[in-house]
């Protein structure tokens, strides 16, 4: 119980999800390709759209995992 108490306002390992979110979003070589297509949409576009959803899920996980 006291572990959440100690984390208050400080670092939480759950924030690593944010680091992943940043690293992928800011590394264009990773997604700058046309293949594979999805419904005719090049990877560059559908992957970044997918990453929006993944990032929102990550943020929601952090919201529930890190209590204030």
């Amino acid at each position, binding site marked *: 119980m006291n572990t959440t108490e100690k984390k208050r306002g400080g670092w939480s390992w759950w924030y690593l999800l944010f680091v992943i979110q940043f690293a992928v979003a800011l590394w264009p070589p990773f997604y700058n390709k*046309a293949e594979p297509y999805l419904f005719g949409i090049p990877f560059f576009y559908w992957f970044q759209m997918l990453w929006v959803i993944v990032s929102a899920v990550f943020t929601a996980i952090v919201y529930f995992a890190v209590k204030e």
Partner: protein
Amino acid sequence: MQELNWVALIIFILLFGFITWLGFAAARWRRGDLDQLHEWGLGGRRFGTVVTWFLVGGDVYTAYTFIAVPALAFGAGAVAFFAVPYTIIIYPLMFLIFRRLWNVCHKHGYMTAGDFVKGRFGNRWLALAVCITGIVATMPYIALQLVGLQVVIGAMGISGNGLMADLPLLIAFVILAAFTYSSGLRAPASIAIVKDILIYITAFAAVIVIPYQLGGFGKIFASVPAEKLLLAVPGPESTGAYSAYATLALGSAFALFLYPHSLTGILSASSGKVIRRNAAMLPGYTFMLGLLALFGFFAIASGVNKLPEYAAGFKHFGNNFAVPALLLHSFPSWFAGVAFAAIGIGALVPAAIMSIAAANLYTRNVHREFINKNPTDKQESQVAKWTSLIVKLGALIFILFVPTKYAIQLQLLGGIWIIQTLPPVILGAYTRWFNSWALLIGWAVGTFAGTSMAIAVKIANTYPLHVGDHTFPAYAAVYSVLLNLLVAIVLTPVFNALSADKTRVDQTVASDYQA
């Protein structure tokens, strides 16, 4: 220009009439004493999760965004999609950093970034620099919202000479000014809800109907020229389009929440929980922005720029006409009217919030600090209301008399200027290690360097830094704020040794930043 589109115009006017009524009625919503600045300028800090979602959404995703991002995709291709990683990474920043700022501002009743910097560092000149930067960066942003409005008004076939051509814009402006004056932040907060419902309807209808009309996404992307489809792969001696893309996203993300209107939206939230929740929910807008960016490709595939009926529009508004032309081409007039109303109302919401934010800054960090130290509540809110009018009038005059391209260039520069407030505002939320004079000099150096870089490349976004044989093109805001930070770090021990800062008191304590 094409003929007057009566059906679209009538729908547009009806929806505008509705939000005008709503804007005035908002004064009575969650009623508060509008003669107090925090009621007028922050909605009494009472907005819950849902209203904050719409309000911050209205801040980030403006009419100009809806016009300019697809226009960039239409003209330049893949690079326009930087708006997606940009609006992905803003939310962790909101979750962590602006959550802290909300706490400390709530605790001490701070209403602006200038208030916070003054309280934290006790240096009113540093606060003044933050305040002026905020106002100057916001003005061209407001002007660009009016450009968004101009484009959709033009798309409905309203044209003319002199005053007649500008009349619709003037009417919209008067509406905006009047409801902002009377209702404060409650007006854009309530109108944002209508605007977003209309935008979502438009975006989803378009993303289903238009690909169907054009024969599917496969055909659409096949019609996009290869050099626009992906970022150019950089050569061996340059980081090329990759570093430009990533730094544009990163720099824009840090700049965004430093803009006064973003902070106004965040500070009007009723609790820190509201902010954290919104960080998880706001990416809903990012997804929609990604869809909207694809409209640029829809426009390429539909070939609207080659159709004679839109030639005049493209001639007048350039690529910014791509989305309106696409909507006119693909939808019946009544639906085009709904979509144009969505964009037009989407201009009024951020313009209102921006002018309120600028007014809060002037009132708190210039007027109260340097002119009238002990205003009554009523005097203070009155100053803010008048300032909001003056700020908007300035933007209007700018749009009517200065070519649009200067507003766009100034807005690009605005991003470079506003990010220079990162060290005192964002780092200030974590540490008071910095000397306030060192921060002030860092700010000045960063502003000068960033502006010079932008001018050196004729006001483009990215500056190609040459190191030896290598080139690192990146957003000038990122380079200049790093220089700013370096100066502040180097000068802090120097100024501390000169003991120039020892007597300054930090109003805040560590626990103020936590829940």
